[in-house]
């Protein structure tokens, strides 16, 4: 039985295209109630959908649903006889699982903290504490840099601040500190002379 394709334009609805047609199916057992086309030379049946696929004796076959026929009339047809690549492609695409395609991020992993408490242990020192200097009560350079021991207003905690910072931020306090500690050195020869005079 020849399986040539007709090229007559379809008379059916918009879903039917040229490629979906086929002439008399090989395995069809009963004559359909409706004939899709009314061409007289050959009977044409229109594939509505490709439902399944199998390989038999090395040949690929597709299970077809025919337009205008019920599912009981579905038939397996060899691939070679078909000219409906769109429908076949559609079927193959549907066969690709929903697993493919992009997957968005799932849950939260180790993310950064949403809230942070400010502990005393990481407390600020010196001027960063935001207190007002009251007076300097000592000085040292044991850290390698000149530091003042600063007593702050409204606090009983004194701590060390760099002199460089204090000189800018509270110069008057620094000056008071130095003034309190000014010492005048007298020269021995002069005193001796005075004593002698006396």
């Amino acid at each position, binding site marked *: 039985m020849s399986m040539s394709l007709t090229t007559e334009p379809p008379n059916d609805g918009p879903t039917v295209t040229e490629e979906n047609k086929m002439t008399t199916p090989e395995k069809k057992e009963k004559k359909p109630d409706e004939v899709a086309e009314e061409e007289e030379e050959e009977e044409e049946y229109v594939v509505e959908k490709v439902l399944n696929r*199998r*390989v038999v*004796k*090395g040949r*690929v076959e597709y299970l077809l649903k025919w337009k205008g026929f019920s599912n009981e009339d579905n038939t397996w047809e060899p691939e070679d006889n078909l000219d409906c690549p769109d429908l076949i492609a559609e079927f193959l695409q549907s066969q*690709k*699982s929903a*697993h*493919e*395609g*992009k*997957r*968005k*991020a799932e849950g939260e*992993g*180790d*993310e*950064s*903290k*949403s*809230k*942070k*408490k*400010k*502990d*005393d*242990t990481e*407390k*600020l*020192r010196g001027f*960063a*504490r*935001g*207190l*007002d200097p009251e007076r300097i*009560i*000592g*000085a*040292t350079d*044991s*850290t390698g840099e000149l530091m003042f*021991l600063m*007593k702050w*207003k*409204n*606090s*009983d*905690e*004194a*701590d*060390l601040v760099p002199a460089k910072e204090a000189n800018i931020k509270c110069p008057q306090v620094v000056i008071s500190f130095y003034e*309190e*500690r*000014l*010492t*005048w050195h007298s020269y021995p020869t002069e005193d001796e002379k005075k004593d002698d005079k006396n």
Partner: protein
Amino acid sequence: MPTKNVTDERLGKFKNKGKDPAKLREKRISECVELRKAHKNESFMKRRNVTLSSLPDEDALSPDYSTDAVSVYSIEDIIKDVNDHNKEAQTRGCQAARKLLSQESNPPLKEIIDAGLLSRFVSFLGMNDEPTLQFEAAWALTNIASGTSWHTQQVVESGAVPAFISLLASPMLHISEQAVWALGNIAGDGSASRDILIECNVIPALLARISPDTPVGYLRNLTWTLSNLCRNKNPCPPLSAVLQMLPSLIQLLHLSDKDILSDACWAISYLSDGENERIDVVVKTGIVPRLVELMGHRELSVMTPALRSIGNIVSGSDQQTQAAIDAGVLNILPQVMRHPKASVQKEAAWALSNIAAGPCKQIQQLITCGLLPPLVEQLRNGDFKTQREAVWAVTNFTSGGTVEQVVSLVQSGALEAIINLLQVKDSKVILVILDAVNNVFMAAEKLGEMDKLSLLVEELGGLDRIEMLQNHDNEMIYRAAHNLIEKYFCGNEVEEVKVDSTEDAFEFRTADVPRTFEF
């Protein structure tokens, strides 16, 4: 003589002149001791949560000076002081509250809230003439807002938000920084609080504080707060807010401080976690190359969010994925896939699986850039969560890849590796693997090599496993397994190989795999 008296008086005012040398010496020694004590106590305070109780002043040496100033300060005292009209009392009370709220274990957040002090603290925030008070109140409120959602809500309800936003402009940097921190805690509570802040125009106020002179510590806090403003979904932050913040985030991403980089990358990861339109906004800034670079950063805290951001971007459209590929992600992904930390490997595999879900042109780039060997390593040796993602990568590859590409995949040893994973308990993974096997057969079919493949799968132990899966509890699994057996392993029927494809006859020889399966 009068002059001598005046002189003596003046001399007496000097520290050293006219005083008994022994006494002077005593005094010098005691001062040195106090200096050393203060220095020692400073380093103690770093380790212990102890307040300095001795005052390194002359007065402190007298025995009747109280040394337990803070510890006897009860909440009642705090309430009394905070509610006082006197500013010194207020400051004292506020500071005492702050110290309690900063202690390491069980800070009394609820007690302070129940004492009704929050609105007082908020009112202190506005007292620009009293910076100490402002600072202590800001710190106290920060720590209350760091608690549970209820705690944070209490802070918001006491009217703190506008007050803190105003404080951002304070000329005192440490006070402004404290406000940044508090706002970060509020933003981190959730979408609702975040959006309240955004409505109150927090973003321009924050961004105004960024300048070349801003100290690193301040920028760290600011970046963290910005990241919380980008955080949370349902809903995501308003697009207008995102567009406002992005330019500054980009700037911050070009710095080198690791804490700033980490939080800036987290911000980008939040912004890219969502609809493709949101990913677009991020990609259009041109930041993708920098993100790829940061994927290779030596600090885990930076690399992790950079990797997450890129993972999010390649979960978007093909164009967005291409942007990542063009930025060089495929050059750096192999080493990330081999990272010693399992969670990093997993994220890398997930990113790879999304790239493999793209068009065959991108799959080709995967092959060219050598992503198959690390993928197979992950399948063989990875942690289960990593293996799960890697399996997705394989299936996506087999689904979107050309026949030649699928052959490359099989030759890399991936098929063998996934077959070995068929014994896992996770049903979803099994289904994904069976899918992949099916796809490989479909490719083999186009080459007319189904027999060869069936043989290979059998030799790899796949046939046995698939046969066993026909008895699986899960319906989808036994159906899928059965399908495979039926379609490709119908033992008796000899399937003739299609003859017309000699030129395209690729072989499924697994060259790199120790077992030799000749076709």
